[in-house]
């Protein structure tokens, strides 16, 4: 989706403003919003790509005005509703009305350190061979899906060179829709800044972006 999350290359947001001695969290609710997001993710009811899509579809103005943890938390509420784990009345009131729905897993305290240390690897086995090898010239396809994608708009129809061929990774475009992990070969693609941004860019500069094979075509 050419949505508010697709920020690469936009202008007009002003300077980057780091906060001196920034704390890890700015309020207690941020800690809980983070922890609830992580813990609910471990229930296996949805995947990370679906979570990202939920955050992208909160509305452009909300996306631009809410803090990142408010985005995370609002998306979490919606994920819980969308997947039937609780209804809006329960979420508003903070009290269970309907019976709980079984989830694949529940993250128990004793398993938490191990689960965090393990994470959620996305490399998968895949038969066959990748279409591209390092040094190949490629072009990012001109795709404008209405759903989730990780091909940023600033790359569409831009030419680059395969920098590294990686493993097969879970494919976000289908995974976000619940249509399966559908692993695809992943590549680090090297794009000249002048190809992306025109003659005003520094000819020495490059942007390296990880692209799944369906995002690319041979040129």
């Amino acid at each position: 989706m050419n949505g508010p999350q697709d920020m690469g290359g936009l202008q007009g947001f002003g300077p980057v403003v780091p906060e001196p001695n920034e704390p890890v969290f700015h309020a207690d609710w941020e800690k809980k919003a983070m922890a609830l997001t992580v813990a609910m993710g471990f229930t296996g009811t949805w995947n990370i790509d679906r979570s990202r899509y939920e955050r992208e579809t909160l509305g452009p103005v909300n996306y631009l005005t809410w803090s990142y943890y408010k985005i995370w938390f609002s998306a979490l509420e919606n994920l819980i509703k969308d997947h039937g784990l609780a209804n809006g009345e329960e979420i508003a009131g903070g009290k269970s009305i309907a019976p709980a729905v079984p989830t694949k897993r529940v993250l128990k305290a004793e398993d938490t350190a191990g689960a965090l240390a393990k994470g959620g690897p996305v490399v998968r086995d895949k038969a066959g061979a990748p279409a591209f090898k390092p040094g190949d010239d490629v072009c990012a396809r001109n795709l404008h899906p209405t759903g989730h994608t990780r091909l940023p708009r600033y790359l569409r129809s831009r030419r680059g060179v395969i920098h590294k061929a990686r493993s097969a990774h879970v494919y976000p475009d289908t995974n976000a829709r619940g249509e399966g992990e559908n692993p695809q070969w992943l590549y680090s693609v090297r794009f000249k800044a002048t190809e992306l941004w025109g003659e005003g860019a520094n000819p020495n500069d490059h942007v390296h972006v990880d692209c799944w094979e369906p995002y690319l075509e041979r040129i």
Partner: protein
Amino acid sequence: MAHDHDHDHDHSELPEMDLRVRALESLLVEKGYVDPKALDIIIDTYENKVGPQNGAHVVAKAWSDPGFKKWLLEDGSEAILSLGYSGRQGEHMEVVENTDEVHNMVVCTLCSCYPWSVLGLPPVWYKSAPYRSRAVIDPRGVLSEFGVTVADDKEVRVWDSTAEMRYLVLPQRPAGTEGWSEEQLAALVTRDSMIGTGLALSPGEVAS
């Protein structure tokens, strides 16, 4: 000409979010979806245990041990795991080395992807629209705001974290640190130097 910038967060979020988060936590605990003690462990992990000190350890070791550095650049995930750092948002690591020819800088234009296992949770500016929008189109402008000047004839290489690959910048080792211990070296390695929006500190910049 631009009179007002409007990208600051709404600092009045607190009371509303406090209520909403408490309500959801109660509900999810009551339903049995989350274990409140697990939440405490998650928070403690990212507030107190995982942070840029992990990455600084990795960098200092690479500066000190050529064999480790080679391994780190070839297989970041495994080399970092050997120091005990792994897990969520660091499952697939690539370490990119700053040299005399290349300055690396990491962004996630599409959300907030960041190497949690070695740097902890990202700062607000990393997740902000100004950084995400400009890092790819105006990296040198962003760098100059961070006080970093890269010569015109040196490559600035921006890594946009669109997949589950996570990037750690291996900054250049500062001059004048010959014979320093790993611990001494680690004190020179700032978070920003591992994102690429800073350089490692020089010996004169740390209290010795």
